[in-house]
């Protein structure tokens, strides 16, 4: 039997087309994925992402543990109310998962992927061995992500006056606790917005008030096209345990300094760095197909440096053409993709296509 979020009935009420997503019954769309995508780029939409896994870390060794667990340096979160995006690696330097770490008043909070929940929890417990801390999954919480140029205004308009101003003025990758609600300026769309982690009992009421305020429900289909336009990786597609973060456009999530911080996978990824400098590590690039057709995950590409593969591909509703991420040999400058009609030229660009509603590559 599939798992259901506290918003399951709300999805049905909005005409959600439900599909299985890693064991959860989730809405793929509520009619039109393209219309939902545009709604987020132009106005505001709400996603139910309660299937994602929230884990709280309490205890005196929490910071030391997190500095060991993830590639980014959690010591950068110098005060409560800050967040960072990072990966966690295995000893071979492959990506176990990507996640966001939040610093709250009394503890840290991780949000990891749903499809990797069981292995992530096992990994956290393994790495935590010897540290004085507790790891607590929070399945009783719901997560609503509200994104789009109007999103913050719409959410703030529903909040008590004392919460509204701090939420309106919250910077990117900042967060705060408001009663038993947790609100963060993080997301997966390339638009401004908020993620609200609330008790399950509050989720349906919040959902109804958002819809009444003109925020439209958005399915997982549009979530995928939005994140791909924003050049954001999807775990299990653009990277996994066999892929170095350096071959997955995640270098900026690695804090190399201080040199004596021994995060898991450091030795391996340091070796990957040498390969990268020698031009021997593949690279995750963006592809744009300016002719007709749609790039799809798994399609083979051929560059002037060798072969590669598309890791995520879609039709970009904002650009009106197909875009993709592909792992290709370093220093590739020309690229063809194997489409139905034979080899078709595609442009290589930085894997970041759309931000704040606008095209960002040349």
């Amino acid at each position, binding site marked *: 039997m599939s798992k259901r979020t506290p918003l399951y009935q709300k999805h049905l009420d909005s005409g959600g*087309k439900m599909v299985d997503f890693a064991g959860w019954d989730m809405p*793929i*769309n509520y009619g*039109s*994925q*393209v*219309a939902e995508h545009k709604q987020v780029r132009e106005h505001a939409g709400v996603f139910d992402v309660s299937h994602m896994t929230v884990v709280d870390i309490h205890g005196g060794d929490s910071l030391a543990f997190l500095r060991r667990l993830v590639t980014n340096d959690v010591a950068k979160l110098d005060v409560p109310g800050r967040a960072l995006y990072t990966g966690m690696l295995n000893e071979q330097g492959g990506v176990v998962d990507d996640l966001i770490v939040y610093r709250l008043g009394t503890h840290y909070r991780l949000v990891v992927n749903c499809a990797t929940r069981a292995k992530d929890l096992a990994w956290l417990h393994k790495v935590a061995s010897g540290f004085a801390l507790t790891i607590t999954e929070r399945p009783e919480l719901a997560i609503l992500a509200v994104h789009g140029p109007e999103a913050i205004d719409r959410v703030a308009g529903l909040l008590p006056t004392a919460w509204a101003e701090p939420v309106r003025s919250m910077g990117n990758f900042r967060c705060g606790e408001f009663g038993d609600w947790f609100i963060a300026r993080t997301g997966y769309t390339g638009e401004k917005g908020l993620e609200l982690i609330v008790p399950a009992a509050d989720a349906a009421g919040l959902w109804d008030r958002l819809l009444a305020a003109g925020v439209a429900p958005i399915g997982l*289909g549009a979530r995928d*096209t939005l994140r791909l336009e924003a050049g954001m990786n999807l775990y299990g597609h653009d990277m996994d345990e066999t892929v170095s973060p350096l071959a997955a456009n995640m270098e900026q999530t690695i804090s190399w300094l201080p040199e004596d911080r021994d995060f898991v996978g450091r030795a391996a990824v340091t070796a990957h760095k040498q390969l990268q400098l020698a031009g021997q590590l593949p690279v995750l690039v963006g592809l744009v197909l300016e002719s*007709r*057709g*749609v790039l*799809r995950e798994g399609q083979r590409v051929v560059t002037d440096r060798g072969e590669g593969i598309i890791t995520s591909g*879609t*039709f970009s509703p904002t650009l009106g053409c197909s875009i993709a991420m592909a792992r290709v040999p370093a220093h590739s400058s020309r690229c063809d993709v194997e489409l*139905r009609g034979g080899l078709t030229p595609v442009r290589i660009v930085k894997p970041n296509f759309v931000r704040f509603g606008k095209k960002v590559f040349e």
Partner: protein
Amino acid sequence: MSKQVKYTKSHEWVSVDESGMATVGISDYAQGALGDVVFVELPAIGAIAKATGEIAVVESVKAASDIYSPVSGEVIEVNAALQGAPDLINSSPLGEGWLYRLKLSNPAELDGLLDETAYAAICA
């Protein structure tokens, strides 16, 4: 449009008028399963369609799907509006979202297709 619409198991429909002109499209069930259509590849005018043969491609946000002609004949018109507005297939699969028209070469093929009730049963 004629009331006599017939369907294939692969989710195309065909409707034939008095002069033996057939119009072909994909069913409402098919457009719903595909999701938003973003590109359509239509046959050339004058192409010879063969029943159950590949004749067009409908590409959605989700997948590229081959379209199989329900009946044989010569293609005499394609829906040019789909080039600029492929989403007509989603909004009006049995109307403005039609794909192509052909002149039937073997009207008896129609007898082998599903009527509305039989088609509805395979989509259930």
